[in-house]
């Protein structure tokens, strides 16, 4: 076993070396798109030359990401506990949660820069990037606490708080940590995207935007590498902590009851009231925030202001046409890119069951595609693939892939060993095991991954449109920024959020009956 593990590690190392050598050769010979892919050695050399430039940029990005990470995750854990304990609060908070989750960071980054000053936009976007992941993993962790443990505490008269303090918080810890693991690179990405929106002289995003026009691929790669390294270190840190805790937390036996199957039967009027409330709360927050900030009405559009812009002004017709045309370009690519990204993640997650070594070998690659393509690969991919839709597709696939893969691989790793052993005992092949056990067991996670992927896909498409192709909503956003067309910026932001929400709700609508028919519960 030990020898096998060492051999697996060795072969991973070997694969990486081979890849690196190939890359070096391609770079040296300028095989790909005449120099768009520089050799690793020249990237490193460039990093060395630029070394004095990096510290202030990295520090500025870390500052925004770090503060956002702390604030966003504190709020997220608190909210997660609240939602797990009080189903009614969860129902009311749904609207805000989905809106925050579906918010394509790039769409509101110009708005934040207009409304706030200094590092605030970065902190807000980093915090938003963390919130949903951590909040939902807190809820999952708490509601998946072993029911028998809770029985023991209740049998001694323990109430809600005893259960929370003695069992649920501790047993949610691994889930929360794996949430933080994804939240960490998200915070870095959030900060960088806010830097794209403008404001501030320092930050990796600022540095990147400044270097974009200069046709220096080696510097772009260097910046991307730095961003990836920061995200990777944050991810690795929380992975290490998670390993420490999950070691002691692995369930001792297989739970007999399905977790969190609490059937709440509220009367219809209450359900309607809660749904209405959950839709109204985000709109009210939007409005209140603008009033509280005192932003001038010209820049800050309230819901009424936006309605006026889109429907009542003399120019409204033109605005509507522009918006619809952009939407028509963005929508199909989002759907296709998302489907491909998830399919790829699903396939790889299944393979990771067969060959656990794959996770070890592939995680770093997945991680690189997490931050790298958004900020650095886009211009390079443009050079390689042209400015057509294929660039958008590749970028979308790579941003949806990572979170989908993590969700599904984690779900599959929770399939009890015994369930896999039963078909094996009857001589089933690995493929049959997958078909009979792993794939059905992974369904809830497939849906969860799809829900997770929806807004990321939209984000990927819009970033590609902004930076590369000059089409669709991403481009409209960038253009409107140039024309100071604030109404259109708000319109794009709101439309992209709505689109995400609608997508998300569609997934939920399919998920519920499918899982219910199989007696399964939705995974977060």
């Amino acid at each position, binding site marked *: 076993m030990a020898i096998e593990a060492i051999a697996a590690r060795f072969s991973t190392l070997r694969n990486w070396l081979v890849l690196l050598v190939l890359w070096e050769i391609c770079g040296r010979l300028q095989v790909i798109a005449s120099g768009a892919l520089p050799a690793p050695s020249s990237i490193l050399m460039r990093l060395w030359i630029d070394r004095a430039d990096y510290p202030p940029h990295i520090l500025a990005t870390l500052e925004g990401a770090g503060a956002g990470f702390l604030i966003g995750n504190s709020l997220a854990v608190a909210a997660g506990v609240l939602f797990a304990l009080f189903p009614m609060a969860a129902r009311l908070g749904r609207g805000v949660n989905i809106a925050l989750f579906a918010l394509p960071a790039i769409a509101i980054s110009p708005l934040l820069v207009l409304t706030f000053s200094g590092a605030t936009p970065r902190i807000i976007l980093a915090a938003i990037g963390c919130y949903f992941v951590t909040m939902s993993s807190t809820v999952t962790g708490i509601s998946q606490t072993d029911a028998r*443990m809770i*029985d023991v505490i209740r*049998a001694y*008269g323990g109430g809600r708080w005893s259960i929370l303090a003695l*069992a649920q918080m501790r*047993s949610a810890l691994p889930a929360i940590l794996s949430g933080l693991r994804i939240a960490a690179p998200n915070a870095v990405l959030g900060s960088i995207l806010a830097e794209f929106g403008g404001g501030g002289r320092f930050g990796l995003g600022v540095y990147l935007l400044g270097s974009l026009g200069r046709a220096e691929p080696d510097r772009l790669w260097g910046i991307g590498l730095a961003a990836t390294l920061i995200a990777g270190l944050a991810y690795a840190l929380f992975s290490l902590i998670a390993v420490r805790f999950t070691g002691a937390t692995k369930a001792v036996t297989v739970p007999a009851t399905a977790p969190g199957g609490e059937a709440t039967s509220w009367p219809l009027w209450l359900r309607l009231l809660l749904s209405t409330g959950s839709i109204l709360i985000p709109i009210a927050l939007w409005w209140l925030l603008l009033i509280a900030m005192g932003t001038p009405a010209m820049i800050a559009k309230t819901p009424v202001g936006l309605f006026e812009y889109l429907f009542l002004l003399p120019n409204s017709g033109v605005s509507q046409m522009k918006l619809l045309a952009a939407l028509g370009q963005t929508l199909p690519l989002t759907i296709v890119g998302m489907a491909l990204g998830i399919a790829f993640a699903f396939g790889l997650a299944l393979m990771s069951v067969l060959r656990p070594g794959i996770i070890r070998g592939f995680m770093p690659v997945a991680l690189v595609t997490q931050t790298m393509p958004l900020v650095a690969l886009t211009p390079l991919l443009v050079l390689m693939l042209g400015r057509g839709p294929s660039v958008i597709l590749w970028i979308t696939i790579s941003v949806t892939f990572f979170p989908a893969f993590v969700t599904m691989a984690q779900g599959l790793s929770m399939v009890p060993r015994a369930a896999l052993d039963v078909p094996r005992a009857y001589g089933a092949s690995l493929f049959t095991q997958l078909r009979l056990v792993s794939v059905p067991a992974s369904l809830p996670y497939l849906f969860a991954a799809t829900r997770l992927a929806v807004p990321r896909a939209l984000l990927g498409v819009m970033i590609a449109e902004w930076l590369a192709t000059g089409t669709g909503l991403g481009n409209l956003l960038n253009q409107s920024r140039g024309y100071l067309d604030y109404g259109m910026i708000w319109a794009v932001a709101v439309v992209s959020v709505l689109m995400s929400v609608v997508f998300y709700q569609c997934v939920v609508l399919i998920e519920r009956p499918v899982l219910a028919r199989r007696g399964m519960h939705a995974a977060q």
Partner: protein
Amino acid sequence: MTGQSGIRLENVSRSFKGRGATVQALDQVSLDCPAGSFTALIGPSGCGKSTMLRLALGLDHADSGAVSIAGITPMEAARAGMTGVAFQDAALMPWRNVEDNIALPLDVLRKSRRDNAGKIASLIELVGLSGFEKALPGELSGGMRQRVAIARSLVTNPQVLFLDEPFGALDQILRRQMNVELQRIWISSRATTLLVTHGIDEAVFLADRVAVMQSKPGRITRIVDIPLMRPRRPDIFTSAEFHRLEDEIAGALDGH
């Protein structure tokens, strides 16, 4: 204290809604366990044994009928620290070591762990886990985990003890040993005990009375008194009287 710690279930009914179908887990069941008595519940799978226990523990609520412990509701009794429970599955917290798992009821009841340190140590010795105080459940065998759960159920000096197939996962040899131990513990504590079990021999060896249940709908069909003298020694397992009682219960289980 005795005379106040009996378990009473009166005309209790409980049904569950599954996917489409409704299952009558308990139908008008009554059971009275006098203070200081040892009652065993035995019956086929799905006859509502565990449901009865959950109702008596206050973990579940009856559709109709009344449940009381020492004249108060099960939850009140639990909050007063009168009860102890060991489940079919050890249900240990994987992140707590043996000592801490045994101390869990004290934490829930907000009782000082230091005052009970001696109690915890003696319980660990009683269940034969000396040397494993700091071990995590994941490092223990199934039988050892179950013994931790037994020790945990006794840490509050309960007047009322609920045991839900506590030895179901143990092998026959260990199970007999634990039965002998449990009897010793019970004789010294005289806690009112309700034991849910699958084992006829276990029920006869431990209980004063065995309540035989049938399913569809779940109900008690017969109560068999066990007039064997205490303390019962292991050689009683082979006695003629013991076999006669076993046969009587087996007959009742078959519906005779």
